[in-house]
């Protein structure tokens, strides 16, 4: 009797152990995918923050926001080459993109504030073409690449035995820090107060004697810095190339619509949601579809479905809350 018990227990225990370790692996895998979603969401938040500010406060539809993302990456590539240091190049690229934003605002955007959205779309679409051609003339048609700095070109263990690319982790840290800074700026400073006031009622703050021109110029420059930061941080993951901001801009627009135009908090929440949706669509949807579709049908349907998932969510949010999750204007 005792002996037979011994005989059974061995394999049983081993099986239980295997099951536990498999579950652990699944938890690790889930955590990795959540982190991937957060990292993606933070990058998109940086892009969406500037977009929602310009749209909400200046009532300006800026299609060329993606061009600032691209310019951030190209400027960083050049400065990293000159200084021979990733950090120095990045730190110099930020004020440079701010300056670029201010110049673009003064040269083009200022003329568009009073006009209707169609004119703005037309003019800023022209800016996209301008920047794409400018980049081709200055940097050539081939893409450039920025290497991950040596101290980040490795993996970190976020949990024992679970490696995560250090550079992606750094993006999460920087993205979160910038989000916190922005939250503080909007909620606690005078500039933030004006920004919030501008988002709720633009005409009124003008009437109250606020220097609108300076405010707009600052906000646009700030948006440019965030877009440039997103572009240069995304560059080592991908490559610096013409039109790199055009694809991601559409998602950024979806984010600000979901979050509510003009709301930084909304942009943050929506970016996180969109980041997770994207990862869920890629990481789990194919396996889920395979439970009732053939393998080949599932693997070609999954990317198509995950592509529209974001838009379905946007449509749902708009039905439920026509001004977006945190939208203020009616």
């Amino acid at each position, binding site marked *: 009797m005792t002996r037979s018990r011994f005989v059974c227990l061995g394999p049983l225990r081993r099986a239980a152990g295997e099951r536990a370790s498999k579950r652990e*692996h699944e938890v690790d*895998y889930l955590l*990795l*995918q959540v982190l*991937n979603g957060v*990292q*993606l969401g933070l990058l998109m938040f940086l892009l969406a923050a500037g977009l929602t500010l310009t749209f909400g406060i200046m009532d300006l539809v800026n299609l060329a926001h993606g061009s600032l993302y691209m310019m951030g990456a190209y400027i960083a590539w050049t400065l990293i080459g000159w200084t021979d240091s990733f950090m120095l190049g990045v730190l110099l690229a930020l004020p440079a993109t701010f300056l670029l934003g201010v110049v673009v605002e003064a040269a083009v955007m200022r003329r568009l504030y009073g006009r209707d959205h169609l004119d703005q779309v037309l003019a800023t679409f022209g800016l996209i073409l301008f920047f*794409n051609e400018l980049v*081709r003339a200055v940097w050539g*048609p*081939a*893409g*450039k*690449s920025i*290497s*991950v700095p040596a101290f980040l*070109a*490795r*993996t970190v263990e976020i949990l024992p035995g679970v*490696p995560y*690319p250090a*550079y*992606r982790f750094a993006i999460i840290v920087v993205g979160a820090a910038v989000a916190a800074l922005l939250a503080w700026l909007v909620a606690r400073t005078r500039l933030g107060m004006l920004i919030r006031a501008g988002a709720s009622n633009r005409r009124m703050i003008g009437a109250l004697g606020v220097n609108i021109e300076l405010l707009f110029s600052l906000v646009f420059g700030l948006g440019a810095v965030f877009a440039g930061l997103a572009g240069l941080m995304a560059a*080592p*993951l*991908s*490559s610096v*190339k*013409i*039109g*790199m901001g055009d*694809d991601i801009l559409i998602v950024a627009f979806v984010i600000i619509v979901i979050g509510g135009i003009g709301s930084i908090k909304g942009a943050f929440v929506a970016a996180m949601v969109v980041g997770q949706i*994207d*990862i869920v669509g*890629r*990481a789990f949807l*194919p396996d889920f579809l395979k439970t009732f579709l053939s*393998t080949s049908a599932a*693997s*070609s349907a*999954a*990317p*198509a479905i*995950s*592509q529209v998932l974001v838009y379905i969510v946007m449509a749902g949010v708009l039905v439920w809350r026509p001004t977006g999750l945190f939208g203020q204007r009616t």
Partner: protein
Amino acid sequence: MKSKLFGPATIAALVFGLQPVMAQTPIKIGFISTFSGSQAAIGEDMRRSVELAKEHLGGKMGGVPFEIVYEDDQFKPDVGKQKSEKLVQQDKVAVVAGYIWSNVLLASLKTVTDEGDTILISANAGPSQIAGELCNKNFFSTSWQNDQTPMAMGEYLNTKGVKSLYLMGPNYAAGKDMLAGVRRTYKGQIIGEDFTKWPDQLDFSAELAKIAAAKPDGIFIFYPGAHGVQFVKQWAQSGLNKTVPLYQVFSIDAITLPQQGELALGTLGAQEWVNDQPNEQNKRYVADFKKKHGVYPSYYGAQSYDAIMLIASAAEALKGDLSNKDKVRAELKKANFKSLRGDFKYNTNNFPIENFYIQETVKDPQGVMTVKTIATAVKDAKDSYYEKCPMK
């Protein structure tokens, strides 16, 4: 009075009067590729090779000068179709060549070959449909059928004893063909497969995490141009380059290597042409290309060079007169030219019967990243669809 003006004599005079002028009209060749946006570097490589072919031919085919009309498909099927239509209807070119992308080619095929009754020479894209049921007497390829290169890779992986594979590619016509190709020949276990959004997905973190969890013996990818750069970088950053080797088709080449750099060292790929092919015409092409542009040419360029040389061979045989389509088709079908990959014959569906090689990513003696041939994967390979083609 009016009727007399356009009487037979006037028409005859006009026709005869025009003929000498006609003979001197240059041969017009249309060339469609991507010259703007993120994949412009591929188009540039093709254009440089076409220009080099023109230079090597002295600007003449069969004694008649020729000109190339370049059009940019902007990496979009609808634009590619529009530009093809413009080349055929407005420019009235004798041949339309080029086409990087299978989806662009599929959208443009009928416009050129049927509605325009014009010869189309694909210098890259080789969708399975055109090799099979959509095959066309006006269509010729100087590249391959999409499935073939990954099939060669699959054969090689069998001999190398790679036991399990994870497949990844973009979700469009060529991506599906490529993954189907490696599935057809690879005998090990395929433990995962992901199609990613094309062309807008540039982040592969979710898929790489899946690969890390699946622990395959190898990853097989098809990510052309800019996407190949992204994938290789992210594969290396995830640390998977230390545990899971990468096998690829069309993802690591002369266009992507300047950006992938040493991350790509040691990876293996399959190709029908490698820049170290030992024939004379290839040595001249590679040397002149490098002298002019300071970089290696890619297969995109080599296939484009071949497309021009193929047209030149027909023009040579017909003394520069490409007006009789039947004669032109018959001459093209002979493939009577010095291809950079060495001689090849056309199959019944007008796709080449050719060898495929395995290439390794290495540094050349000057320290420049490039690829070199290390093995022949398959010889005189025919594609898997030609029997479905009604042409015999």
